[in-house]
């Protein structure tokens, strides 16, 4: 009763305008705007129509639809493909568990990935690579994800185990994909055979995960009061930032190989990953340093006054605030890194883009379809970049709500 009365007394803000009003205000607010609307609206519709017609009837998607596996994993031996499947399922399982435990952003990712797999599994097309075995595999991966969800949601599995799982799965995955020497069942698959999205993800995810802590360390290093540490960090950061990524890739892939004896030569893919990592770390370091400088001195004094030492002050007070301040910049940095991995083509690694190019070049017939292939690849890159962008915005807004800073 009392509450109802109170609700009636509240002065409400003006309501947003309805659709008709919105159109009037935004599209027909003046004679000039009305003319623009009348001219542009049909034009846009017509262009859209042309695009749809081309996609459905004009374009020939054969160069894309014939090689889904090639795009996904490159030349990875087809008789060893279960290893890729196993690793992928492992990731989906972890994603399922995390979805069950933390929901939020992970829920969106899991649902998007799951529906995509489901879509492919039931796609009503004849494709030799999308046979019954593959469809059953995709279906069971969805089931594995759901089992993971139930485990995460219903059991009292410790959070630490889930986080540990996220560290274990990639390591186990890479080892399994690489194989063991002298093993009958899991023979070595040399990285020259790896390719496609597998390599793109490996370089991007590996680059992000490795460059972030390195970037944090360099950022602190550059601010260090020890001249050796700050000098080294500054030289490293400025040295790397002054060089194009292409040059770094060449340096790591050729020069590093020249100086090391043949038997201790680092794997080609690892060298590319090292180049991508140091490049990204140098840029992240400067972003993070900006965030560190934005933390008010009063915060550090308050922590110190409570008896916290330098290390605890950094971990609990400085770093969380600094990272939150620079999250958009770092997310942008990582999206750029994801797209920059395409440069490994020039050192002969067949990432997603490289596979597309080699398909085009493999047959005169496919040369005619290069537009379709490039558009397909652009869309794939866009989808993943946009997902990263969405993820960063989601993380930002959760942080914003919690703090209201």
């Amino acid at each position: 009763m009392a509450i109802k009365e109170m609700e009636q007394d509240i002065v409400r803000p003006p309501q947003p305008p309805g659709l008709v009003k919105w159109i009037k205000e935004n599209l027909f607010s003046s004679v000039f705007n009305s003319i623009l609307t009348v001219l542009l609206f049909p034009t846009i519709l017509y262009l859209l129509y042309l695009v749809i017609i081309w996609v459905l009837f004009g374009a020939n998607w054969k160069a894309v639809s014939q090689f889904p596996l090639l795009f996904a994993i490159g030349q990875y031996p087809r008789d060893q493909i279960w290893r890729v499947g196993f690793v992928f399922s492992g990731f989906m399982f972890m994603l399922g568990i995390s979805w069950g435990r933390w929901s939020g952003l992970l829920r969106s990712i899991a649902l998007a990935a799951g529906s995509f797999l489901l879509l492919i599994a039931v796609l009503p097309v004849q494709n030799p690579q999308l046979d019954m075995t593959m469809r059953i595999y995709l279906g069971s991966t969805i089931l594995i994800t759901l089992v993971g969800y139930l485990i995460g949601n219903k059991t009292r599995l410790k959070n630490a185990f889930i986080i540990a799982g996220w560290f274990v799965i990639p390591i186990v995955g890479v080892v399994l994909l690489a194989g063991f020497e002298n093993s009958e069942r899991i023979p070595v698959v040399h990285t020259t055979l790896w390719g496609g999205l597998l390599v793109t993800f490996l370089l991007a995810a590996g680059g992000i995960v490795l460059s972030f802590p390195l970037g944090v360390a360099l950022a602190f290093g550059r601010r260090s009061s020890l001249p050796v540490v700050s000098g080294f960090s500054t030289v490293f950061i400025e040295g790397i930032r002054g060089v194009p990524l292409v040059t770094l890739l060449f340096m790591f892939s050729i020069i590093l190989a020249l100086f090391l004896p043949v038997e201790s030569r680092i794997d080609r893919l690892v060298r590319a990953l090292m180049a991508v990592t140091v490049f990204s770390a140098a840029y992240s370091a400067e972003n993070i340093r900006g965030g560190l400088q934005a933390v008010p001195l009063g915060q550090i004094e308050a922590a110190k006054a409570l008896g916290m030492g330098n290390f605890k002050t950094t971990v609990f007070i400085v770093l969380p605030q600094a990272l939150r301040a620079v999250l958009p910049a770092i997310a942008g940095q990582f999206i750029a890194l994801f797209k920059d991995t395409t440069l490994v083509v020039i050192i002969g690694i067949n990432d997603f883009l490289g596979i597309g190019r080699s398909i085009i070049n493999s047959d005169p017939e496919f040369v005619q379809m290069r537009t379709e292939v490039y558009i397909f690849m652009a869309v794939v890159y866009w989808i993943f970049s946009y997902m990263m962008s969405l993820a960063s915005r989601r993380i930002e807004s959760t942080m914003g709500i919690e703090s209201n800073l």
Partner: protein
Amino acid sequence: MSEEPIIHCSGVHKWFDEFHALRGIDMDVYEGEVIVIFGPSGSGKSTFIRTINRLEEHQQGDISVDGIELSHDVRNIELIRMETGMVFQQFNLFPHLSVIQNITLAPIWVRNWPKEKAEDKAMELLTLVGIPEQALKFPGNLSGGQQQRVAIARALAMEPKIMLFDEPTSALDPEMIKEVLDAMIDLAKSGMTMIVVTHEMGFAREVADRMYFFDEGLIVETGTPDEIYNNPQEDRTKLFLSQILQH
């Protein structure tokens, strides 16, 4: 007062580059005393209170807190900081942590208390300062007065023997000053040793045992509130008091 002073300062000098901010400060504070320091801005009063827990380093003279000599030894500095709580003019709450996390952080990670114990203590202190219902909010959602009371609770959670207040009400809107002062008065009456830099003369009159007037890095005059207000000896003290008491 026969026992040893809990804070002993003698001949404390401090320079900021060429600027001589503290020019030989002597002060002994005994357990349970409430000391009010006042003076014009730039007189060194904030600098002095910050040397006690080594947020500022003094270059000459001796400071010891609860028998611990303040030196370059990092362990000594951290020990003293555990014994002294500090409340700042700008609150300095941690914006990325909730109120309860702000209060429990140091007890859990510095005193190594179990989480439950720290949280019980935090709720007890929030009740003491009158805002237990704000425990799960973030500092950005609180008023200035509430934030400063959380800051007091945060400092008290470490169970310090001494509380330092560096102009705790200067950044507050007038209507919020009273709620913070009330919490400080309660604390003073509970027997806490306090050093307060403030111009709140009503507060000083009510709970201060001794007052110190600082000017140009020196203690110009000291005495009980009664002596300072009713019978100031120095001209500078008289002038300053007439200026701040005019309003």
